[in-house]
Each structure stands twice: as structure tokens, then as C-alpha cells.
């Protein structure tokens, strides 16, 4: 009777419920849900604004320089002193990201000195031609409330725009040794200022270690 030993496992699986998520890109009605995203998922970029509405991007092109796929194209221009687009001298005049090249490595987010570019958690989008895959500044920039724009070919869900700001602030100290292991979060339209907080290490040293 040893050959029957496998059947209880099969029977048990019958009562374990369904693992399939009925994701249908927004066309499946109520049961159409997304799987929860990891905290550090890299999705589509956004260009942030300060709380006074000024753009954070200063057109320094560091993101374009660090991009391994060379998918970012930035051109800076001088601010109009009477009506500035961003604080400081320069602002990002042209900002384009080609999503048919972007590998979502987040190096641009880490390179950005003003936290202008961060990545959202939105990863459900597709294009029917190459031209619409190139996002310009009009599409990347957050709106008046500091929320990312929800473009018609993207599948945004309720509450997803809350997870827009960058994860990198938890790990990248932006080169400042005072901020190693701490989160520095400057003011951002729609999300405000977040207090610095210490970060717990997920891998703790073993008790037997002599260190």
C-alpha cells in the first residue's frame, strides 16, 4: 500500500485555497488585484517638487551620467530670476527617460543630489510603439498635489501613489557620514518632511560571533 502514501498530499492541496491572483490589468472587475509590492521595488520614475511647488531637479545631469543603460536625457537651462522653476541657478529644461532602455537600477535616484528623481512602485505598463515609451518631463513631473500623474496606459490602483518616494534614503547616506544608517528626508510636496529614523539591520550578527 506504499503507493498510496502520496495521495494525502494531493488531498491536502485541495483544501489549501487558490494561490492564483486574478490580475487582468484593470479589466477584471472586483477580483482584479495586484500582489503586494516589496518596499524596495523600483518602478516608474517621478520628478518631485518642493513643498512650495518648485521643482527639485536642477539639471545637473548626474542621473544621465550614472545611468548604465544611457536611458536618461537631461538638458539644464538657467532659471528666470523673477519666476524660477527651481531654487538655485539652473533647472531641468528637458528631462526624458526611455523606458525601453531603463533597467530600473535606481542609480539615478542615488546619484541625484536634490532627491528630485525617485521611483514609484508602479510597474504595470506597456507600450504599443516606441515613441510613447519615452517619458518626457510633462509625464514624469508630479502634479500640483505632489502626486504622480496616472497616465492612461498605466495601471494605478488606489493608494499606490503613497509609495512614491525613494527607498534609497534608508540606505544611501548621500555621501554624508552623519547620515550613515539614518534616513534624511527633505521636504517634498505631497509627502512633507519625514523625521530621520534609524534603520535596523536585517542581518544581525550571530550570538556566537566574537565581534
Amino acid at each position, binding site marked *: 500500500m506504499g503507493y498510496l502514501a502520496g495521495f494525502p498530499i494531493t488531498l491536502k492541496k485541495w483544501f489549501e485555497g487558490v494561490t492564483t491572483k*486574478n490580475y*487582468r*490589468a484593470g*479589466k477584471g472587475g472586483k477580483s482584479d488585484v495586484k500582489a503586494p509590492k516589496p518596499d524596495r521595488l523600483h518602478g516608474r520614475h517621478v520628478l518631485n517638487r518642493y513643498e512650495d511647488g518648485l521643482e527639485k531637479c536642477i539639471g545637473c545631469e548626474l542621473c544621465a551620467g550614472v545611468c548604465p*543603460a544611457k536611458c536618461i536625457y537631461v538638458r539644464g537651462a538657467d532659471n528666470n530670476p523673477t519666476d524660477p522653476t527651481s531654487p538655485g541657478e539652473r533647472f531641468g529644461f528637458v528631462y526624458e527617460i526611455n523606458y525601453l*532602455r531603463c533597467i530600473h537600477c535606481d542609480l539615478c535616484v542615488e546619484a541625484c543630489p536634490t532627491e528630485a528623481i525617485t521611483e514609484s512602485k508602479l510597474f504595470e505598463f*506597456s507600450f504599443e510603439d516606441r515613441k510613447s515609451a519615452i517619458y518626457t518631463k510633462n509625464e514624469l513631473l508630479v502634479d500640483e498635489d505632489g502626486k504622480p500623474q496616472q497616465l492612461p496606459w498605466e495601471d494605478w490602483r488606489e493608494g499606490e501613489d503613497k509609495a512614491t518616494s525613494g527607498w534609497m534614503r534608508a540606505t544611501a547616506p548621500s555621501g554624508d557620514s552623519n547620515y550613515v544608517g539614518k534616513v534624511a528626508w527633505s521636504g517634498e510636496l505631497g509627502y512633507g518632511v519625514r523625521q530621520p529614523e534609524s534603520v535596523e539591520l536585517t542581518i544581525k550578527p550571530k550570538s556566537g560571533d566574537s565581534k
Partner: protein
Amino acid sequence: MGISDIQSQGIEGLDHNFLTAPLEKLVNWSRARSSWPATFGLACCAIEMMATGGSHYDLARLGMEVFRASPRQADVMIVAGRVSQKMAPVLRQIYDQMMEPKWVISMGVCASSGGMFNNYAIVQGVDQIVPVDVYAPGCPPGPETLLHAITTLHTQIENGELLKRREANGGAGAGMYIEQLDGQTLSIGAA
């Protein structure tokens, strides 16, 4: 239009009328719900493609669970992964062997534009070889991104025209023209 047209040209001789319009909708509806993909996993994107076929995302919900090893039984080619210059003729041959109607999803940035591999070994965009209908961005695209692309393709199929070959509409894809070194100019769509 008439019986003689159908006799000489097959069903393609049919004109649009109030009888064929519902038929067209029905055929497109059924095509969108049973578009079998060809197995064309080339790199790491194929892992995500397999994950999409697995139990968590389950392509069978969309009638696509049968990945066909033979291109003659496949409707959709999901180009998953970077296409090297050596693989390019193989990919084109498999596309040519697929039966009409056929569609192509370019999955991932490497297939779509070469991605971060901007070098001599990788084709800079699979739409230089085959006409692409939907591009899925990401490196690699997650199963949900691929499902989004598949849903976009299904919408295209449902709204598309029945029995119209791509060449008759000027070709799909990027519509790019490549200047050859010897001075010839090749149109990708007409190739």
C-alpha cells in the same frame, strides 16, 4: 463582393457588412482568448515568462497556457530576452514559420531596444527584425507587467481587423529605416 470573390480569394474576399461585422467581432474575441504563445525565451526574461505561466499568475486564465514548441501552432511570439546578432535570423525564421494571424510581444528592455547592452553583439531592438505589437518595459518585466502587455495585445486583437495582413497596412513595429553601409535602404516592414 459576391460568391465569386469568395471563391477566388477565399474569406479575404468578404467585404464588411452587417453580417460580417458580428462575425468579425466573434472571431477577434475568440482569437484574443486563445492566442497561444511560441516558446521563445532567450534570457532572464524567460524566467519571468515562466513565472507568468505558473500558478500564481496563471496564463491559463487568458487562454495562453499552451506554450507551443512548434511555431506553426503558435499565435503570439513573446520575445523574452536579449537577441544576439546570431540569434536574429533564427528569430526571423521562427516568426516566418508562424501562421497568420500572428503577433509579437517584445518583452523586456533588451528585446525592445537592447537595453543596457549597447554593443556589437546584441540587436538593438527586436523590431528591426520582426514587427512588434506590444512592448513590455522592465528589466525584467514582472509577471504583472507581462500580463499588462498581454492584455494590451488582447485589446489590440479584439479591436483589430480580421484577415488584414500587416504588410497591407504598411507594417507594424517602429517603422524604422536602416541605412545600409553599401548605400541600400531597407524598409523593415516590407522586408
